[in-house]
């Protein structure tokens, strides 16, 4: 409490790593799961289910469902509850139309230490596709559940799962002089939020380093925009840019060596690339318009940004060393806030549709077409999961809500936070294996 009071007086607390924030949350499925593969996640066996701090198999089932590619059957429909392969009667699962079965058990190996064993079984062939035994402390249980969900996802789809990843976002609570801004980092399902910066002045635009160890962001703590980077393990942070005017919209280069940023020190907002280390600057754009929101292509060769040089905001692409920019978007009068998929084939963006609603859309770099994937009124800040299969975004009209959608927009879920505004979600890269 003393610490909290102290931080309020200071207006800003650094490195609150380890201080658990108010938890989320309920997860609501907002759309159906047509076309998803039926799967069964049997509750994992354990000596004392009541003593388990987390329901590991339920976390795995929720992850698989959130991807939109799997449809876990309800627990009450299960005819048996095996916890190891020798107990499985495959007919029990074939009659339910389930293709794949996940079973497992958890051994308590000490005070607050566990061993989690799971098997992914092919119901039709009657064999094991993958299986593993993973030790975990109490604090690691949710992360291990997400890790297991990633193994299952990869075994069944051939693509890497992105459940054991994190999101960074900004919350705003209170009003007037008691308004408080916090930058938080949570698991990809919104659980386990930790506050990394707290300020009475706005915080904005979190972006992850490619190794997922650092976050760069904009802070107005000195009553002007400045860009900082912060180490998530130690909480230590460094000021990177504090020029006259705007210091905004940081985006890390894929190799981690540079940061694309927006500066207006030369009179109006332009895109610059800052080399981390000596913090030297290269100006990328030259236009009297607003040029902002740079994002790197995954190959590091080009930068896509927002510019209103042709009237309203549209997306442009320019070489990462500067030069002539090419306009990408022509559909509609407002396209902004680009984020590349990890394969470089798609861009998520904010699009104002013909009826004036701000929605998340996906732009295909090959076909050059936009597809709207959200249905809100004021949707913003889309960010791809590192496997390119899901997009998280903020829905401003509904307070305290982040939405997660499949890339085709067919499956959506809402992460409901308890309090205040939740905004600017940024999905982390893959965590180191």
């Amino acid at each position, binding site marked *: 409490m003393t610490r909290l009071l102290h931080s309020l007086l200071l207006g800003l607390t650094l490195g609150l790593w380890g201080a658990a924030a108010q938890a989320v949350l309920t997860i609501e499925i907002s759309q159906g799961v047509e076309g998803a593969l039926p799967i069964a996640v049997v509750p994992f066996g354990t000596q004392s289910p009541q003593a388990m701090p987390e329901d590991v198999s339920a976390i795995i089932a929720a992850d698989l469902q959130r991807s939109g590619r799997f449809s876990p059957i309800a627990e009450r429909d299960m005819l048996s509850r095996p916890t190891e392969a020798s107990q499985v009667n495959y007919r029990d699962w074939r009659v339910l139309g389930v293709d794949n079965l996940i079973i497992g058990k958890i051994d308590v190996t000490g005070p607050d230490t566990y061993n989690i064993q799971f098997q992914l079984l092919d119901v039709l062939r009657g064999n094991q596709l993958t299986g593993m035994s993973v030790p975990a402390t109490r604090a690691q249980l949710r992360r291990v559940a997400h890790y297991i969900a990633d193994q299952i996802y990869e075994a069944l789809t051939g693509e890497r799962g992105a459940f054991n990843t994190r999101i960074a976002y900004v919350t705003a609570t209170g009003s007037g002089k008691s308004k408080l801004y916090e930058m938080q980092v949570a698991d990809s399902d919104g659980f386990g939020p930790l506050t990394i910066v707290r300020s009475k002045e706005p915080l*904005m635009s979190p972006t992850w380093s490619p190794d997922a160890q650092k976050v760069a962001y904009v802070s107005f703590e000195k*009553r*002007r*925009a400045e860009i900082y980077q912060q180490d998530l393990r130690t909480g230590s942070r460094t000021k990177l840019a504090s020029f006259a005017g705007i210091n905004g919209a940081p985006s890390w280069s894929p190799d981690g060596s540079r940061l694309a940023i927006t500066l207006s020190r030369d009179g*109006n*907002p332009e895109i610059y690339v800052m080399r981390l280390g000596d913090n030297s600057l290269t100006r990328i754009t030259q236009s009297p318009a*607003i040029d902002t929101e740079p994002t790197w292509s995954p190959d590091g060769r080009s930068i896509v940004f927002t510019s*209103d040089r042709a009237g309203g*905001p549209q997306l442009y692409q320019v070489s990462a060393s500067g030069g002539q920019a090419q306009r990408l978007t022509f559909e509609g009068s407002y396209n902004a806030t680009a984020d590349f998929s990890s394969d470089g084939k798609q861009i998520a963006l904010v699009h104002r549709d013909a009826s004036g609603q701000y929605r998340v859309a996906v732009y295909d770099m090959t076909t050059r077409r936009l597809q709207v994937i959200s249905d809100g009124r004021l949707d913003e800040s889309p960010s791809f999961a590192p496997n390119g299969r899901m997009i998280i975004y903020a829905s401003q009209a509904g307070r305290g809500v982040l939405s997660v959608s499949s890339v085709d927009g067919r499956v959506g879920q809402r992460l409901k936070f308890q309090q205040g505004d939740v905004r600017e979600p940024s999905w982390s890269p893959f965590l180191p294996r």
Partner: protein
Amino acid sequence: MRAAWKPLMLVCAVALATGCSSMGKKSEGDVAIEDHGMGTGTDMTQGIGVGSGTFNGMSIDDPNSPLAQRVIYFEFDSSEVRPADRDVLTNHAAYLRENPQAAIVLEGHGDERGSREYNIGLGERRAQTVRQILELQGVGPQQLSTVSYGEEKPAVDGHDESAWSQNRRVELIYPGR
């Protein structure tokens, strides 16, 4: 930028009428500007009397003073200062000219729609427009600083045009007042 220049031209016309010393030569030949702006300009010069000492008794702490009005509002996606608000700026310009030690912060803001970083850009453009108007009326550049908060500090919470119209603004902040 397009929209941003129009109010500047109008102010130039006013400045021409009042013999403002900061007038640039290139505006003198611009007939279109005079045609467009003269009506408003006459109004403003009548009400204000720049340089006549009208402002000597005006206090920025007096809630009834014209200087108590310190917020300029904008249309959606626009940084154009509306005619009525040019009068407000003319009052502040006169005060700042007479009090060269005074300095103000111009805070640009936007409504919540669309991109947050683009709105930071729009807020700065609005603050810069106001800055240029004040400078053209003889306020020293060292008396003015700008900051854009974009949509991050709304004056009014709400998700409709009534809230949005109050949030698209530039606030003239006299530090400590």
